């Protein structure tokens, strides 16, 4: 097998193989390799002792340093909260009016609120909070459930028609589909509602509007009020302003009266901290002053 043959020129052994007179040297492994191999073994032994490493049946060695990534995360969250404490304490303790009047705090609210809104609210209400078909524009003064700071904060907390126990509940009945009104009456009521926000509209038949007013008085005032100004206690929208969630054209209003509406906003109490919800409220109030 192994042939002991020393190469005279280098002094190393050969492998004993020969190809057309050429022999292969069996050069020893360089010392540097042993050096780094020793360091690697020593490091791993140290690592086994210090870090979680060896399985022991139903448990494992925890390591002397007691490092657990879950504690690392908890610790880093704690540190982050402590870092933010400089201004979070102020947001938590001060009133909305005081915070809104403080440009320094509002600069922070804008900076922190934007990603918070983007991660949680923008999917429905849009990146700039201007909403979309079926999802309300939050930069207007028209809030279904009240636009005062506490109202907005509460709506974020409980949601609308959500799973929260204190949720806002509202439903616009499907007057047409559920046969509460005949087809013609739905259109008349819709025409009257359209005329409220379009007082100058010329193409409306006054008789239809008058008939619609009567139907409105019989069916709609319970929620929307005698003057159709809505009721934030019930989440009933003001029908006389220019803000519409599902569209303010005659066609869109007719669709809403025919098929009803039941919007849904999730509750954020279980997902966002009280502080985050207060920041979002301030962020929205700030958006609103920017876009009257």
């Amino acid at each position, binding site marked *: *097998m*192994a042939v002991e043959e020393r190469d005279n020129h280098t002094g190393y052994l050969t492998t004993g193989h020969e190809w057309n007179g050429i022999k292969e040297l069996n050069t020893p*492994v360089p010392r540097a390799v042993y050096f780094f191999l020793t360091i690697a073994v020593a490091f791993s032994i140290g690592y086994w002792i210090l870090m979680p490493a*060896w*399985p022991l*049946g*139903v*448990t*494992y060695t925890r390591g002397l340093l007691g490092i657990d*990534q*879950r504690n*690392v*995360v*908890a610790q*880093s*969250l*704690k540190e*982050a*909260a*402590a870092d933010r404490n400089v201004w*979070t304490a102020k947001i938590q303790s001060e009133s909305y009016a005081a915070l809104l009047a403080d440009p320094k705090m509002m600069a922070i609210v804008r900076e922190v609120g934007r990603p918070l809104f983007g*991660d*949680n609210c*923008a*999917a*429905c209400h*849009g*990146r700039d909070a201007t909403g*979309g*078909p*079926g*999802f309300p524009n939050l930069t207007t003064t028209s809030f279904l459930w009240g636009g005062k700071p506490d109202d907005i904060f509460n709506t974020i907390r409980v949601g609308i028609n959500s*799973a929260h126990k204190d949720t806002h509940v509202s439903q616009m009945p499907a007057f047409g589909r559920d046969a509460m009104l005949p087809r013609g009456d739905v259109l008349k009521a819709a025409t009257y509602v359209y005329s409220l926000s379009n007082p100058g509209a010329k193409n409306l038949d006054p008789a239809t509007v008058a008939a619609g007013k009567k139907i409105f008085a019989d069916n709609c005032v319970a929620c929307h009020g005698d003057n159709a100004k809505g009721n934030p206690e019930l989440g009933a929208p003001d029908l006389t302003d220019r803000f519409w969630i599902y569209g303010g054209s005659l066609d869109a209003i007719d669709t809403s009266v025919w098929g009803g509406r039941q*919007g*849904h*906003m*999730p509750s954020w109490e*279980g*997902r966002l*901290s009280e*502080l985050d919800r207060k920041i979002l409220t301030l962020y929205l109030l700030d958006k609103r002053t920017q876009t009257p």
Partner: protein
Amino acid sequence: MSIFGFHYQLERKAIGLVLGIVLVSSIGGLVEIAPLFTIHQTVEDAKDMRLYTPLELAGRNIYIREGCYACHSQMIRTLRDEVDRYGPYSLAVESKYDHPMLWGSKRTGPDLARIGEKYSDQWQVAHLINPRDVVPVSIMPAYDWLLSTDLRTDDLSAHLKAQRAVGVPYTDEMIANAALDAYGQANPDSPRAEGVTKRYGKATTVRPFDGLPGRLTEMDAMVAYLQVLGRLTDAARKPVAQAGAVQ
């Protein structure tokens, strides 16, 4: 050197070398993977962990069929920025009944591990029909056919049975009623709805997910599945709730 001397000898024995290679390359698996099956802490205990209903399981199958996992992960890692953005990090127990698991590591879209009940059904439906309608900058493909395709329910019992074969504790009653439960979960006013909460627990959401009561579509299944992601157990909220208490 003696270890090289041993190797010198081993290299000359083909079978011995092959066995040696097999032995060395299995060390990683033996030390890092095999013990997870015996170590108690691997999978946390969660008494409130509930099963996927047949409708949610059907939605999961559609999720796999459409390749959603190629762009969306379902795994929030134990890192601060992930917890800040998505919520409590994922626990192993939350994937206890996921066969196969859909953790993934590729995020072209956001992680979906905590998407359940984050947005409304209406939003999920509108977004699946055409993502650009609600998120103008989205690059996600549209899945509008989900709303016009009726859900196949005749094979749901077989799917439940297959899940049971790999360890999900579905009962005979659940398997027998799979198709009816799928219908009932999306039709709260039907007489089938009651059986769903009876068999799968009060936490089960029963509602017309796609907004079309009376009809069972693939959209129902998909939205039901998305709305249950991260909500099979509350276990994950506990450790982070403690960490959050200092805020």
